[in-house]
């Protein structure tokens, strides 16, 4: 119910608003295009895509309290949907996006039926295990490149029209998808549906004593979040033009959780900031050393151990000296 959640600190809360985030993305893209950089639009597209996946995970963790450690699986399913459909000659975006969404949502719901029978530590381990199963399955698909993966046939088309010629085109679509997702998920969170998820997270026994077993709500949340990650996967495959099991590696799930928590789970926009932060760490540290994940690990450890696993608090901390 706290739709206007008590999130970000005074002065920085505006950063979490979908409209502001999307405007900043659009501005960054405009600057990148104007400066003629070939690389920047690619980075912006990637960031928007990962932010999309992170936002869907933030909805699960922040609203429903479901700490899924397998969110790389629906992401990978979306990517493989592009690869597999492409092998059969299907590149129409009007097929690929619904297909990626549906396949990923179906996977999330099917594994969710079992995972939701459990709580806490079990839930984390089971989602991780199922995602890992899919990772190995993808690696065993010799027709689609096995462990090495395969390049996609072509970027998505619109009835034969190529509309994703450059990464700038792709970034536009990724940013639009991110904007729509933020709006829809914010509505969903403020609506009774989201209220039930939050109540179930805060006090499941009370919710039951009021007459609601939130199982179906949670299942729907899992499917929706999985579907959105599937959309992100479709975009990702189009951006990289290559699909491999590595997309489903559990480290990807871990990094998505890092984005969600670094940005704070109270507001969905936090995950976007978290995704940007991780990309910035990647791009800056990555230039200096191939061991940039060492630095990322230190940042994560420091953030949690110093109790600052929340970017908003870090910002506030520095803002107020």
């Amino acid at each position, binding site marked *: *119910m*706290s*739709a206007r959640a008590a999130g970000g600190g005074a002065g920085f809360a505006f950063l979490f608003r979908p409209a502001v985030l999307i405007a900043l993305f659009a501005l960054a893209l405009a600057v990148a295009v104007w400066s003629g950089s070939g690389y920047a639009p690619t980075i912006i597209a990637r960031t928007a895509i990962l932010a999309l996946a992170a936002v869907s995970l933030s909805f699960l963790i922040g609203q429903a309290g479901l700490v899924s450690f397998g969110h790389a699986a629906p992401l990978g399913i979306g990517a493989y949907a592009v690869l597999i459909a492409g092998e059969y000659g299907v590149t129409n975006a009007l097929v690929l996006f619904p297909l990626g969404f549906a396949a990923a949502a179906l996977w999330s719901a099917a594994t969710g039926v079992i995972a939701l029978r459990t709580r806490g530590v079990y839930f984390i381990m089971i989602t991780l295990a199922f995602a890992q199963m899919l990772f190995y399955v993808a690696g065993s698909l010799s027709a689609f490149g096995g462990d090495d993966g395969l390049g996609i046939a072509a970027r998505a088309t619109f009835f034969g029209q190529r509309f994703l010629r450059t990464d700038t085109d792709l970034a536009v679509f990724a940013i639009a998808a991110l904007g729509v997702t933020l709006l829809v998920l914010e*509505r*969903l969170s*403020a*609506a*009774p*549906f*989201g*209220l*039930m998820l939050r*109540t179930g997270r*805060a*006090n499941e*026994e*009370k*919710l*039951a*004593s*009021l*007459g*609601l*077993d939130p199982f179906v*709500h949670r299942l729907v949340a899992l499917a929706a979040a999985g579907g959105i990650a599937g959309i992100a996967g479709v975009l990702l495959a189009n951006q990289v033009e290559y699909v491999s099991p590595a997309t489903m590696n559990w480290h990807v799930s871990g990094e998505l959780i890092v984005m969600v928590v670094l940005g704070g789970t109270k507001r969905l926009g936090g995950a976007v900031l978290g995704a940007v932060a991780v990309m910035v760490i990647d791009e800056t540290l990555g230039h200096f050393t191939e061991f940039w994940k060492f630095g990322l690990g230190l940042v994560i450890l420091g953030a949690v151990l110093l109790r600052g696993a929340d970017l908003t608090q870090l910002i506030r901390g520095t803002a107020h000296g």
Partner: protein
Amino acid sequence: MAEPASPQAPVLALERLSKSFGALTVTRDVTLDVRPAEVHALIGPNGAGKTSLIAQIAGALAPDAGRILFAGADVTRLGMARRARRGLGRVFQISNVVGAFTSLENVALAAIVAGGRTFRCWRPALSDRAALEQARAMLERVGLADRMATPAAALSHGERRALELAMCLVQEPKLLLLDEPMAGTGRAESERLTALLAGLKGRIPILLVEHDMATVFALADRISVLISGAIAITGTPETVRADAVVRQAYLGDEEAV
């Protein structure tokens, strides 16, 4: 006001309920009923098995043997949420509200659940006029009119009990299951709560589990005494007060408790 015990069917009936944990029997062949419009108090010394019995009635714990009939149907196998949907309202021993939500939000939440509108996905929950109206009216009724915008976590203990009661009542339950509502409240608060419950007496049947004897004897139409998991006696307050076994087992050492 309250009809005298009538031939009407009881709202809640426990039939020969039993429950053990290993060698420890917490519920021993308990038969008990709550009649329409009745306040039925359940008392007993610490460790008599009141908490386990409440848990079985609410659906949090499955009995080993026996049946639970509620509103004319066998609910023994139903979970907590489904019993609640059939009209079993429960106020917990330890206040159970959503601390981060305001009083108004807590009660509106209960109203939305009762109204079956939990799958609405687009309009904000706080724009649910009907739920908010119900919630406001109920908060006024329990004396929390000036605390509507206060987060539940910031309420006093007694206020939280009243809030929980409001969450129950807004769902228009067929029975109220009150688990030690006076526990931990001060004298003034407990008198206020007792008055509140007295206002409900006769309108909603209540099963009241309570330590505070003043409240029990002020409200109860009938009293059952639970000792070592079994019902020792069920009767009017006068009968129970006069019973030698009860005096010895329970009332006698009241100060010691």
